[in-house]
């Protein structure tokens, strides 16, 4: 049984003028236990909305119009606020993009990790402290004791992110949702954090939803990749397949934008990269048809009128594109 099933999720935001802007439309995907799903999307794709919607953490002007989010058999969109509170942090851990703004500036790190435990579990003081030390040791192989007594401003960006990871896994959740967890980090630190995710998945059987705009981060880590464009799932499939033979025109065009491997051709240096012309659509305009159509080099007449249905293109590999319509 899948750990998480998202069915037909529709989320919209209301502007002050009363205008409604759809941010996610008809999102469907499953996640198995211990699986890492990479959600690949650029700005405006709806990826952060998806992370927030799963746990009903949308801002006040956001609304889940319809859909189901089944987690461990329960519909998260319908559970009581008390149950939801137990699930958030307890069964599902969250890691957000800016470690500096997610940590309390005047509490020591050890305290901040203990607080997460204390919010979900009844533990005596000694047990709480021991568990906190173990958690910090799992993300800080050296120096955990010193980190525990430090304040956030005394830590580097990478260290702060490790603290957030410790908080996210504190209560032994079965799923962690990480929204651009390495965006503000240096390459070396980024690599370490990604490796840490891999290790945690192995050791704890943790499932992850890893949200990013950079396809290269997902290669070698994600089991499957879901590509979001304009609030819709463009493509979903095994990571290796999506990256090596992307079927949706957007995915293929996005991967072509990456600077090519230098070793393959030195003449590639200082040449123009293939780009996706234009900009992502303004979803408040409610345009008919496929959202990628204006920028698609393979567009057909039907793409302007209707939204494409989902088509299977391989083993567990689906694409929403009229190219594959039967």
């Amino acid at each position, binding site marked *: 049984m899948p750990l998480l099933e998202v069915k037909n999720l529709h989320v919209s935001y209301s502007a002050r003028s009363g205008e409604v802007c759809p941010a996610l439309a008809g999102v469907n995907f499953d996640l198995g236990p211990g699986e890492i799903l990479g959600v690949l999307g650029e*700005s405006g794709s709806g990826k952060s909305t998806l992370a927030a919607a799963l746990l009903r953490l949308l801002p006040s002007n956001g609304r889940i119009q319809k859909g189901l989010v089944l987690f461990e058999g329960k519909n998260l969109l319908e559970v009581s606020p008390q149950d939801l509170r137990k699930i958030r942090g307890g069964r599902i851990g969250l890691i957000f993009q800016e470690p500096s703004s997610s940590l309390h500036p005047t509490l020591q790190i050890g305290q901040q990790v203990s607080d997460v435990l204390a919010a979900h579990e009844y533990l005596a003081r000694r047990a709480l402290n021991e568990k906190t030390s173990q958690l910090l040791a799992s993300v800080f192989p050296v120096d955990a004791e010193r980190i525990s007594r430090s304040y956030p401003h005394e830590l580097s960006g990478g260290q702060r992110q490790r603290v957030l990871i410790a908080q996210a896994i504190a209560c032994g959740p079965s799923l962690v949702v990480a929204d651009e967890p390495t965006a503000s980090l240096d*390459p*070396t630190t980024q*690599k370490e954090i990604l490796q840490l995710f891999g290790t945690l998945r192995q050791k704890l059987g943790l499932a992850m939803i890893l949200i990013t705009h950079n396809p290269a981060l997902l290669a070698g880590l994600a089991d499957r990749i879901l590509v979001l464009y304009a609030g819709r799932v463009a493509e979903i499939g095994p990571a290796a397949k999506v990256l*090596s033979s992307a079927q949706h025109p957007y995915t293929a065009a996005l*991967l072509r934008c990456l*600077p090519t*491997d230098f070793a393959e051709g030195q003449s590639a*240096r200082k040449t123009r990269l293939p780009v996706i012309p234009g900009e*992502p659509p303004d979803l408040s305009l409610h345009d008919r048809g496929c959202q990628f159509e204006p920028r698609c080099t393979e567009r057909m007449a039907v793409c302007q009128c209707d939204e494409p249905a989902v088509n299977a293109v391989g083993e567990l590999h689906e694409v929403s594109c009229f190219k594959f319509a039967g």
Partner: protein
Amino acid sequence: MQPLLRVENLVKLYAAGRSASSKDKLTALDGVSLSIPSGETLALVGESGSGKSTLALCIACLEPPTSGSVWFEGIDAAALGENQQCLLRPQIQLVFQDPASSLNPRWTALDIVSEPFLVQGRFTKPDRAVRALQLLDLVAIPRKMAARRADELSGGQKQRLAIARALALEPKLLILDEALSALDCSVQAQISNLLLDLQSSLGLTYLFITHDFAIAAHMADQIAVMYQGRIVESGPSEKILSSPNHEATRSLMAATPRFIETPGVLVHF
């Protein structure tokens, strides 16, 4: 032919202690030397804290170095007085990483690109408007966006605007400090193409600061690697990428995630 920019033994110390009288010093730059021929791109690669941004500020004459020289077209810029430096600054312009903070969100696109003209007291009012629109054309921002406020533009459009502003005074050297790092992949490709086109049409020289070796490999003629305030390795891009010597270079290259489209595997250099 002399290089457009030649930095010689640049040292920059900052006071590090808590009290005003403390003698503790932080060495941000520890004797940095580099040179860039006119029309070329040097990528300065390093992690945070390596001194890249401090070097950018010293070259742009926004921070006085503790010692050393910054030779720009044969003139030691660092040794000039304030008035003469003001005359030199238009030649060296900066584009920063985060256009949301480097552009005033409440100003219109037209006002933002016109600001350098006002600061430098150039051109009449009608002329400024004409030139500002031409700058928007140069970076492919549609003229109908000229009256939009900066916070109404997308990330890519904002960065184009930042580049247009940097080009207003017709500089010879553009220092791009992580200018592509905050952008989505597809937007990065668009902006890097724009930068290549502008370099070729305007004869610009770039100092391209980045922590991303993949971008450095794509954009630069030369690569210099910074570590703890020093340039530990530098040379033509091909050489650095094919046979890196220094540990810092190798570890940065190893940490740059790129993948080869076929067979879709994660590759580190």
